[in-house]
């Protein structure tokens, strides 16, 4: 079920990338935001069918969010700040995932001072979305994308051409797989299974486990812009990518093999999150190893490969969790082994990635 969601999401990200390249962000982004808002308004109708339908429509619109943000950063902001802005985009997303639900909880809390019906909350979400769509429509540069010059008339061959360029480039595959392998230790490992590992394997209390794991997204919020900024500052991608991946490997091994309580509280989870910021560096490399006229499609392909990696690794870890003694760390050591091996492979592959920071461009 979750795996199929990842597949649909990954395929839709490819479509959004092509739309951005052909028609530009001014035509695409306000529509994506408007679709998401309409999903909220449908959800607000209150019935179960409206809830399911609204949720699906929201998800469809939401696919534009990350691919569109990285397209706008790559298209309209200086090349020297790309990694910083891609990192800041992910930072805002993680902040939304970690803290975005708090105000909603306060508003609908039956014992709270607001006590607003949940349908009204969705109505509010819809109105906020419509405002955001209108603001984006006004602010976004009126640019039709690179379509006429580079993409030719609308035909199946021309629609597939950007994919042939990107998938025909081995560097794209390296960037996508490295990004995916550096994502899963935190998404599947720490956020998916971390709390149960700490409470069952390490025998900590559930409250301790939950608050320790919640340090990981905070680490992301710090690490994504920080590592991007360092990479832009020094003009190199690979040292930051490899350095971050090595720290991620060390932190993951600490989390698995050093008993809870030895290291200072929160430190391992926080360092793991910060080092995971390295996973955002290949998003910039992906754009830079491919021609500029396919940057939207490249962002979509990057999402596709990262979600594809998650879609493969997630059931693998779940399968390894079955049939073992859930009260021992040995089970978690076994089930997390693919994630650890994945980081090692990512470090190896990173050495094969072409250096695309501005310092290398200048010399080349």
């Amino acid at each position, binding site marked *: 079920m979750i795996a199929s969601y990842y597949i649909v999401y990954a395929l839709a990200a490819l479509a959004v990338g092509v739309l951005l390249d052909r028609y530009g962000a001014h035509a695409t982004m306000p529509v994506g935001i408007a679709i*998401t808002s309409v999903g909220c308004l449908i959800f607000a109708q209150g019935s179960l069918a409206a*809830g399911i339908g609204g949720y699906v429509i929201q998800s469809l619109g939401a696919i534009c969010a990350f691919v*569109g943000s990285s397209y706008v950063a790559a298209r309209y902001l200086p090349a020297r*700040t790309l990694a910083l802005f891609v990192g800041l985009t992910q930072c805002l997303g993680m902040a*939304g995932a970690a803290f975005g*639900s708090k105000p909603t909880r306060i508003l609908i809390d039956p014992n709270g001072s607001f006590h607003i019906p949940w349908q009204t*909350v969705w109505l509010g979400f819809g109105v906020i979305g419509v405002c955001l769509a209108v603001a*984006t429509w006004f602010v976004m*540069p009126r*640019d039709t994308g690179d379509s006429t010059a580079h993409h030719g008339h609308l035909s199946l061959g021309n629609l597939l051409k950007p994919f042939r360029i990107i998938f025909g480039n081995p560097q794209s595959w390296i960037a996508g797989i490295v990004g995916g392998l550096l994502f899963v230790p935190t998404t599947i490992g720490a956020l998916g299974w971390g709390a149960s590992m700490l409470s069952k394997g390490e025998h900590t209390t559930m409250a301790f486990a939950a608050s320790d794991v919640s340090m990981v997204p905070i680490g992301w919020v710090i690490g994504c812009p920080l590592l991007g900024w360092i990479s832009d500052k020094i003009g190199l991608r690979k040292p930051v990518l490899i350095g971050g991946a090595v720290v991620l490997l060390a932190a993951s091994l600490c989390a698995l093999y050093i008993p809870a309580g030895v290291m200072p509280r929160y430190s391992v989870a926080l360092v793991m999150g910060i080092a995971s910021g390295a996973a955002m560096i290949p998003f910039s490399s992906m754009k830079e190893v491919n021609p500029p006229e396919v940057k939207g499609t490249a962002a979509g392909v990057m999402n596709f490969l990262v979600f594809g990696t998650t879609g493969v690794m997630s059931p693998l870890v779940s399968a390894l969790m079955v049939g073992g003694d859930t009260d021992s760390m040995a089970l978690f050591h076994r089930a997390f082994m693919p994630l650890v091996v994945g980081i090692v492979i990512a470090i190896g592959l990173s050495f094969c990635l072409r250096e695309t920071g501005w310092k290398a461009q200048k010399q080349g």
Partner: protein
Amino acid sequence: MSASQTSNTAPLPGSAPAGQPQTIQPLYVLAWFLCALFYFYQYAIRSAPGIMQDELTQAWGNSHLG
């Protein structure tokens, strides 16, 4: 980067920019920020069904969004 891709003139909404600028331009940063805000917003609304699960179960019976 070729010379034809550089543009240092201030952007106007409604004008088609020639290429990727070399300096930070506030209007373009705002355009990016609105998209990033959308990314924040979609995460916030996607986590909303989870935190109103009690209310949704009450309204819909035992079925809820997985």
